[in-house]
């Protein structure tokens, strides 16, 4: 009787995965059209990922664009075409780190940082959500920040990549350049903390 274990291992790649692999192959050969397909396929995901970590629409848009350009330039260095997504997220993680480093530096030299300006632009440009939605978003941000503060740095990275960005363990492993067993260990720890955080879980339930 095939168990869930064997079933999962023998699972064939989805047609979408196959298409992505083809695009990667063609883009590596120099096809801009194939890269455009790839970029548009992952654009929303990467934008969301950046937004979670910057909380600025303008910055997220700029950084997303930069990430894809960087990916295009460095595509030749990608050895395994199947790992494109994880590799793309690695570029994104590094770019976010750069962003926060620069932001810290800017704060050191400027009393009024560009963030204030960015936030103003954000408010002007983003379509205004309803007051209830805005409140829920704000509370979600606060509650998730409170929960994340209880996690270690790696636990936070792994948890966010798994449950916010919906990455598979193998993709997280590529993105963070860590073994799958290490990723799982950090996930177990983070989930144990999540399971015991009644406030956050009740908030998620809408209580």
């Amino acid at each position, binding site marked *: 009787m095939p168990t869930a274990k064997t079933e999962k291992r023998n699972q064939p790649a989805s047609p979408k995965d196959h298409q992505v692999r083809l695009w990667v192959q063609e883009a590596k050969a*120099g096809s801009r059209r194939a890269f455009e397909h790839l970029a548009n396929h992952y654009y929303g995901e990467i*934008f969301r990922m950046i937004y*979670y970590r910057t909380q600025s629409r303008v910055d997220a848009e700029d950084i997303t664009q930069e990430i894809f350009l960087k990916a295009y330039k460095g595509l030749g260095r990608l050895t395994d075409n199947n790992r494109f997504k994880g590799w793309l997220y690695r570029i994104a993680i590094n770019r976010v780190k750069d962003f926060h480093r620069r932001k810290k530096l800017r704060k050191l030299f400027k009393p009024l940082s560009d963030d204030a300006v960015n936030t103003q632009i954000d408010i002007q440009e983003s379509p205004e959500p309803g007051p209830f939605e805005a409140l829920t978003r704000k509370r979600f941000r606060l509650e998730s920040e409170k929960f994340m503060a209880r996690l270690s740095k790696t636990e936070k990275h792994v948890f966010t990549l798994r449950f916010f960005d919906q990455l598979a363990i193998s993709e997280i492993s590529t993105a963070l350049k860590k073994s799958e067993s290490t990723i799982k260990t950090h996930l177990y720890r983070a989930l144990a903390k999540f399971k015991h955080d009644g406030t956050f879980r009740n908030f998620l339930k809408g209580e």
Partner: protein
Amino acid sequence: VIVTIARTEHLTEAQIIQAVVNRSDLSDDMLEHLATCLECRAEETRLCAALGQLGKMAQASVPKNEMRFAWPSGQSEKGKTGFFENRSITRMAVPALVLLMVVLGTLLINPDQKPHIKEMALHMIDPEQLLSDIDNLLETPVPPEFQTTVSFIEIDPEDDFMQDIVPRIENDPMTHRLKKKGVYIC
């Protein structure tokens, strides 16, 4: 006949978490228990639902994005980049150009250098000749008439000069002193 022993105890919290992270990491008996035990399944479903809700709320917290990837204006096709756009070529060419300018500048400022360089070039040994000279030296390191002078064939070990270089054990103050038992000089 394969006999499977039904697992009676429930999954631990760690095992429930393991099931949520990667179900295939659970052993077969645990998986079977999870498939039949309503309590454990409910626990797993609750945790999965909370995490699913977290993902949904996270997605909803992001403003809608209508932007798409766009090439920067003026970006040329990969592999057909302009000569000056190629950073590696520019990185190599700039120091080479600076070096060339320094050399030319030095020559222009100090014209006396010119005959000196010419002279050096004239006296330069033909590389092939230089290699054959080296080969000759390797085969016959020293001309035969000097062989006896530099070799130790005709050297008398009792000679005062040789005694200075390689003293006999009994004449060597250090070894002789160490051989003696009793009080050391220092």
